[in-house]
C-alpha cells in the first residue's frame, strides 16, 4: 500500500490552486491570468515581509532575556507593563498578522496574557508609521480622537480576554510543536 504523506491543508489548497490555474491556462480562460497576477502581486509583498519578520523574531527570541520580560511585562507588572507593551507596539509597522508571532514570543517569555492582548490592541490601532499616513490624509484631529478612543477600548478588551482565558484554562498555541 502506498502511504500518502501528511499534507497540511494550506499546501493542499495551494496545490489545488496551481492545478486550477493550469487547467484555466490549457482551456484558454483569461481569468487564470488575473488570478496569477493577483497571486504574484500579493506574494511579492509577502516575499520580503515574511522572511524579514521571522529573522527579526528569531533574533529577538535568542536575545530577549526571559527575566526582563517576566519582570516588566509579566503577571505582576501592572501599569508599567501596559506602558511597555504599548510602547513596543507603537514603534512597529506592518500588517496585524505579523504581530501574532511576536505576541506568541512575548507570551512564551513570560509576558502576561492581558499584556499580550494589550500589545495586539496597540499594534492594530496605535502604530506610529501608520498614524503618519493617517494624519497626512485624514488630519490630526481625526487621528488623535481615534487613538484616544482606541486606548480604553482595547484595555477593556484585554481584561475581558485574559479573564476568559484564565477561566477556561486557554493557552496560546505553539505552532512550532505541531507539524
Amino acid at each position, binding site marked *: 500500500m502506498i502511504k500518502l504523506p501528511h499534507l497540511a491543508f*494550506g499546501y493542499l489548497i*495551494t496545490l489545488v490552486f496551481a492545478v486550477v490555474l493550469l487547467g484555466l491556462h490549457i482551456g484558454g480562460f483569461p481569468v487564470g491570468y488575473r488570478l496569477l497576477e493577483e497571486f504574484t502581486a500579493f506574494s511579492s509583498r509577502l516575499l520580503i*515581509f515574511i522572511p*524579514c519578520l521571522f*529573522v527579526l523574531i528569531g533574533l529577538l527570541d535568542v536575545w530577549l532575556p526571559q527575566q526582563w520580560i517576566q519582570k516588566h511585562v509579566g503577571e505582576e507588572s501592572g501599569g508599567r507593563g501596559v506602558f511597555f507593551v504599548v510602547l513596543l507596539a507603537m514603534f512597529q509597522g506592518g500588517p496585524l*498578522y505579523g504581530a501574532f*508571532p511576536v505576541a506568541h514570543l512575548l507570551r512564551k517569555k513570560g509576558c502576561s496574557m492581558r499584556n499580550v492582548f494589550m500589545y495586539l490592541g496597540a499594534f492594530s490601532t496605535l502604530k506610529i508609521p501608520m498614524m503618519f499616513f493617517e494624519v497626512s490624509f485624514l488630519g490630526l484631529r481625526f487621528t488623535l480622537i*481615534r487613538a484616544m478612543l482606541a486606548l480604553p477600548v482595547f484595555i477593556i478588551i484585554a481584561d475581558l480576554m485574559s479573564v476568559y482565558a484564565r477561566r477556561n484554562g486557554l493557552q496560546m498555541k505553539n*505552532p512550532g510543536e505541531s507539524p
Partner: protein
Amino acid sequence: MPDDSILIALTLIAIIVSAVIDRRKTLMGLRRGGKMLLNLLPQFLMLLVIVSVLLTFVPREAIVSGLGKQSGGLGVIVAAGIGSVALVPGPIVYPLAGMLVENGMSWTVISVFITTLMMVGILTFPVEKAYLGLRLAALRNILFFFGALIIGVLVGSVL
C-alpha cells in the same frame, strides 16, 4: 516601496549587530526564525490563495463603490463588513479614505471602515489561529469587531 527598504535595512542591521556580538547565538536565532517560518508556511500560502481569488473576483473598484453607495446605518454595516474582510495596507488605504472624505462620505462610515480594517482580520484568521488557538482567535476578532464599531461610531459622532 519605501516601507520594504526600511524593513530590509532594519533586518540586515539586526543580523550584523547580532553577529558582531555573538555569532553562534545569531545562527541559532536565524535557525529558529527559519523553523517558525516553515511551520507557518501552509497558513501563509492559504492566505495568499484566498486573497488572490478574492481580489480577482471582487475587484478593488467594487470595494470603493460598495463603501460609497450606502450611508447611515446600512453604510456603517457595509463599511464594517468590508473592513473586517479586506486586507489593505495603510499606505494604500489612507489616500483612499482621504479621497472618499473629500467626495463627501460621512466620517462615521470612514472611521468604521478604517478601525475594522485595522483591528479585525477574517482572511488572516488561519495565521492567527495557529498562534492563539481557535477560541482565543475567534474571541479576539469578535471583541475587536465590536470595539472597532464603537470606536468608529464615536469618532464619527465627535467629528
